[in-house]
């Protein structure tokens, strides 16, 4: 346990005991796709709810050879992405990138990059709420039993009521899915657009909830099926004719902004939420976060 006296902290900030505990939980999470594995969740110098679960996973698995990308809302320059990247690089010294294709490890909040991920890439998702059952059963003890017995009837009733009241499955983000036909899983607040991209993917998805102290995973080539009814199938946010105002992409997840005009009050425009994808289409080259 010798340590360089010049440095206050160890590589990856967490001590080896904490990393080992997270690694053990990760192995079990991968072995039981979609099942929430409890872990101790250490206190970090980042506030609870601000990505401490994803951060602990990243710090527990990162090696000096990794190339890291951190995004928030699809944006490398988002304020929290910047802050988490700063902490990770300060405590590991690993190389960072904004190019999705160059990254071996990507930490994200609320988005999966548009560019399809490869088998040699790991996506770490920051999770605020871990359990879709919380909508119907806030009690942790009872919800754990429901998962154990695959007792998801009440969730289906909830979905049905949503259809009756709103005419559609009115869940916007953190859409519930069945993983490997067994566990109901929260998709973190990724938009519905990203949900199908969890299914039978090439990359490994790791989910970390620091405040809720749970880790779960979706291995590659694993079935991830959104909850839906035959007459009310799952739909993404895609709208025919949608288009990014910057790069012209017609097949990405877009966010809207109001642009004030000189006289007529302005207008709503939409642009890619994945900024690197958008920049690359524009051929803008590297854009510093």
């Amino acid at each position, binding site marked *: 346990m010798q340590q360089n006296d010049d440095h206050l902290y160890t*590589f990856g900030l967490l001590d080896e005991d904490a990393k080992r505990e997270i690694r053990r939980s990760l192995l079990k999470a991968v072995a039981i796709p979609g099942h929430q594995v409890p872990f101790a969740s250490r206190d970090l110098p980042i506030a609870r709810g601000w990505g401490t679960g994803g951060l602990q996973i990243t710090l527990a698995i990162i090696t000096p050879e990794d190339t890291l990308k951190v995004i928030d809302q699809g944006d490398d320059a988002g304020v929290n992405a910047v802050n988490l990247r700063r902490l990770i690089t300060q405590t590991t010294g690993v190389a960072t990138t904004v190019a999705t294709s160059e990254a071996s490890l990507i930490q994200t909040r609320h988005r999966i990059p548009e560019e399809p991920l490869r088998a040699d890439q790991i996506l770490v998702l920051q999770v605020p709420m871990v359990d879709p059952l919380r909508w119907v059963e806030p009690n942790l003890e009872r919800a754990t039993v429901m998962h154990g017995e695959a007792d998801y009837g009440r969730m289906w009733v909830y979905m049905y009521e949503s259809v009756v009241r709103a005419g559609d499955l009115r869940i916007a983000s953190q859409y519930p899915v069945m993983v490997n036909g067994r566990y109901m899983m929260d998709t973190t607040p990724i938009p519905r657009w990203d949900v199908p991209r969890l299914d039978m993917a090439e990359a490994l998805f790791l989910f970390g909830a620091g405040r809720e102290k749970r880790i779960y995973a979706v291995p590659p080539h694993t079935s991830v099926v959104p909850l839906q009814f035959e007459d009310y199938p799952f739909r993404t946010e895609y709208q025919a004719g949608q288009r990014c105002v910057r790069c012209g992409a017609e097949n990405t997840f877009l966010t809207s902004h109001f642009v004030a005009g000189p006289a007529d009050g302005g207008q709503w425009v939409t642009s890619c939420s994945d900024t690197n994808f958008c920049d690359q289409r524009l051929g803008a080259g590297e854009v510093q976060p």
Partner: protein
Amino acid sequence: MGFRPKPSFFFRFGGEAAKTEEKEFFGGGFASPEPPPREYTTIALLTNTMSTIAAPPTAQAYFSSRAFRVLLDCLARPGSIGTLPLPPQDDGLPPLAATLRPNPYAVAAFLSLLDQTTSMAHAAEGLWLTAEHPLTRWIMLRSNAQIGPPAFADYVLLHDPASAGCLSELKQGSLTFPEQSCTAFLCVAQLDACGATWRLEGPGIANSGSVGLPGLTPNVLKGIMATRAHFPLGVDIFCIDATGACLGLPRTTRIEAVYSR
């Protein structure tokens, strides 16, 4: 008293170059700033530092992180063969028996997951090894892990295929806590990515995969199958060969023996 903050004061950091950016960031329109008082500049520099504040990993920590990535990848992609890194030190692994030496890759990977909160057991030639065995002491000394009854062990190391029968004794977790199950490391002679002793299906495998385990006796598959009859309960297994090649077999992997004609 008497010192009232003026809006222009906020833009005193960062020297000339930063001024325009700051103005832009705040929408511009504030008075041109004066040079900052010295002590405030120092504080700004301290919080601005982006240099590394952590030591490089120790040899052991570095090994553990790399070994873990191999284990994680193997478990996420059953059928793909990973290569475990060389253990950082091999300071005289005690032999198991006169003819059987422990697999240093398997021992090191096993060790990388253990600490004082975990319990372990290990077996060779189909028999559990005691707390007094030199290799048990070697592992306990380096990990602080407790040796316990195999039925309660969190991590188990089986030094040879002849010990695969021991798999049936291991804990498989409960319906509410399926993660409270054993993880087993099974040493085999050779793993062949191009071979076809077993056909594999399940999460992590595109369509189906296969793996070769030359010279393997049928009892091994029997032992493994005994650990995965009641998903989500089950034991997760790593097979590791003498060259450090590693195969992950999570409880979700369905295995079928391929019989050559």
